[in-house]
């Protein structure tokens, strides 16, 4: 099958994300990349756990003084929902429904942007309470772990928007279908990482 071939609903393959060799390579290579990313985040989590609540003096806020459930719960819901909407987008991709896919990708991007907005607000709130990147090892570790995740979300947003704009006028083919699919894999991955951040950083942080 040729990458630039034009398709109809009937001729569209069942697994368009891996029906050419290039696509198969991309698919597998990206899974490996996510494997590496897992180790990257595991290292950051380990660092965070080692430095949690390690502050130079007793006046500085600790995890249990800082984190509040409502804000992070809303952020979590936004990101989890965006993972679901990206599944819908991929469902329509597999059914060759380009415009529906674009709508769901757009919603995914909006939810992601909402999440990022909340994170920026949250960070500025903590800074006002004296929990800064440079104020303690705890601060450095917190902003590095959560910030790395936020950076991944921001990169994913740019990626999603670039893909949508680039392909807005030409519909689906076997060249861009794997690109959309790989993006959705990435988006799920940062969602999974967030589930761990929510648990390890926020929930365990609030317990003490």
């Amino acid at each position: 099958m040729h990458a630039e071939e034009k398709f109809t609903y009937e001729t569209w393959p069942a697994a368009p994300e891996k029906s050419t060799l290039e696509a198969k390579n991309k698919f597998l290579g990206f899974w490996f990349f996510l494997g590496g990313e897992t180790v990257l985040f595991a290292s950051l989590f380990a660092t965070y756990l080692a430095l949690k609540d390690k502050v130079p003096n007793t006046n500085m806020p600790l995890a249990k003084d800082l984190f509040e459930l409502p804000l992070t719960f809303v952020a979590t819901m936004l990101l989890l929902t965006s993972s679901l909407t990206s599944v819908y987008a991929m469902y329509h991709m597999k059914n060759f429904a380009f415009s529906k896919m674009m709508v769901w990708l757009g919603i995914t991007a909006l939810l992601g942007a909402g999440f990022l907005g909340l994170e920026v607000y949250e960070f500025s709130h903590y800074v006002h309470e004296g929990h800064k990147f440079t104020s303690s090892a705890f601060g450095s570790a917190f902003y590095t772990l959560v910030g790395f995740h936020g950076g991944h979300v921001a990169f994913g947003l740019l990626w999603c928007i670039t893909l949508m704009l680039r392909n807005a006028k030409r519909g689906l083919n076997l060249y861009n279908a794997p690109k959309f699919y790989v993006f959705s894999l990435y988006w799920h991955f940062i969602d999974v990482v967030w589930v761990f951040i929510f648990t390890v950083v926020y929930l365990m942080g609030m317990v003490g």
Partner: protein
Amino acid sequence: MSTYAQKKGFGATLWDFLTTVDHKKIAILYLIAGGLFFLVGGLEAVFIRIQLAVPNNDFVSAGLFNEIITMHGTTMIFLAAMPLIFAFMNAVMPLQIGARDVAFPFVNAVSFWLFFFGGVFLNLSWFLGGAPDAGWTSYASLAIASKGHGVDFYILGLQISGFGTLMGGINFLVTIINMRAPGMTYMRMPLFTWSTFVTSALILFAFPPLTVGLVLMMFDRMFGAHFFEAAMGGNTIIWEHLFWIFGHPEVYILILPAFGIFSEIFSMFSRKRLFGYSSMVFATVLIGFLGFMVWAHHMFTTGLGPVANAIFAVATMAIGVPTGIKIFNWLFTMWGGSVKFTTPMHYAFAFIPTFVAGGVTGVMLAAAAADYQYHDTYFVVAHFHYVIVGGVVFALLAGTHLYWPKMFGTMLNETLGKITFWTFFIGFHMTFFIQHFLGLWGMPRRVFTYLPGQGFETANAVSSFGAAFMSVGVIVMLINIIVTSVKNVKVGNDPWGDGRTLEWAIPSPPPFYNFKQLPLVRGLDAYWIEKMEGKKGMTPAEPLGDIHMPNSSFLPFIMSLGLFIAAFGAMYHVDKVSWALPVMILGLLITFGAMFTRSVKDDHGFHIHKEELMDDDDKGVKA
């Protein structure tokens, strides 16, 4: 597009190499760049031995000595050994599995240029205010306190080249899984391909911790974070863990491909199938797995406690088992074989006792209680040079002779090759054997001098004398390369006459599409099987058809250059110079701009048509 036979001007050749995505040309780039860094690292080693040749020497100052040992280690590991291994992986692995290129040719070029710019960045430190001086391990308490920009060069240079290595690992994994020729099952893959596979998996899981460690140290040194500063709640041991969780797999990343090269050599020049092929594969995988379980044996004296030390000591000793399996398999491969003593076989032969010696000291060091005595002495220096030089460098020199005809189409001179071998081999043992005793007598590593009357004079003089021998060996090899390149006597498909695997079934150097028709693989040592049945080449597995090839691109160079520029900005940002931040942003814009361009510009590659391939037959290129 059949341009490989044409003469080209210098400018065109340069442009060709700057934009190439062909794994064989990228291999040559890795070989040249890695070779140059090997010479730089070797020069640093010579300076170390000159300084230590006599007591109370003032050839270099104490501070400069620290910079030289740091750069010697860092350069040799990251900028010489790894790229040279990548050179052979790129040159040989796709040919061995019968592929036309790696899975991501573009990413392959990005990998090389990232490594190259990272390496250049690191070495520019010599001219821009001093090199890193906290040792190649760059322990945080030392590195954070280091004045000037030396350690910053280390952090940013390794970060950039590390990205390249990581991408290379993913690339090779996908290539081996997805692009094997028909009939090339996993258990028919040559051992070098197997070791590339396991090594790539190690790279994938070992480099991210280094990335994180370097990021944390970058934040501490350049952006005001406190990960490693105890006064602010930080913990300096975090660096040690992250570094060695990377660093121990790293030594297996180096040695497994060396095992692979030697397996090929033993089998080729004993003219015998490799003994215990499946146990070799098993041992390779097992070493790769255990490699992740032993990092804390570098930290026995850190104070993790007796339980942790005991567990890591036992796990470390366990690695001796699969390694022993390999040693015996190599011996049994030679046993009863019709052994031909070519230059590569000399290295392979010398490798066994040398590496066993390094392994034995390894088990000695693994005994945690005894390690308190050996720690940070020359005993450790002797141990890791026995495994890294006796294993990795021997393999790289052997591989250079073995694969030179496949990469460049001409043989290196065998007589000069053997002179290189003997001078290097004798010089190596003279330099490092005595260092075991220096260590046991109490000479600490990383000291810039010692006093007369401490009992270290003779041993150090012998050691330095040996280094001169090794240098002569390397110089003879350079002469060999120049002489044979000038003569340029062309060779055929199988210049050693004993080729067993697919790479020897195609021309040297191979055409840019490698295989005109993908070969049908009928067993282990695919080409040998065909030869034994009296056939000239491989049976094709497909009819002659159009071949899809990737386009060349300048973007990999630009992408990597962007990070190189950004690194200068990040580094001088600390000095509060006005141009630093704009330069950093500019560099990142270049990199992300190139990524964006790559993303939005369609690149479908091109097709070589059947008719052109048939024309090639007339020019004498046989697939």
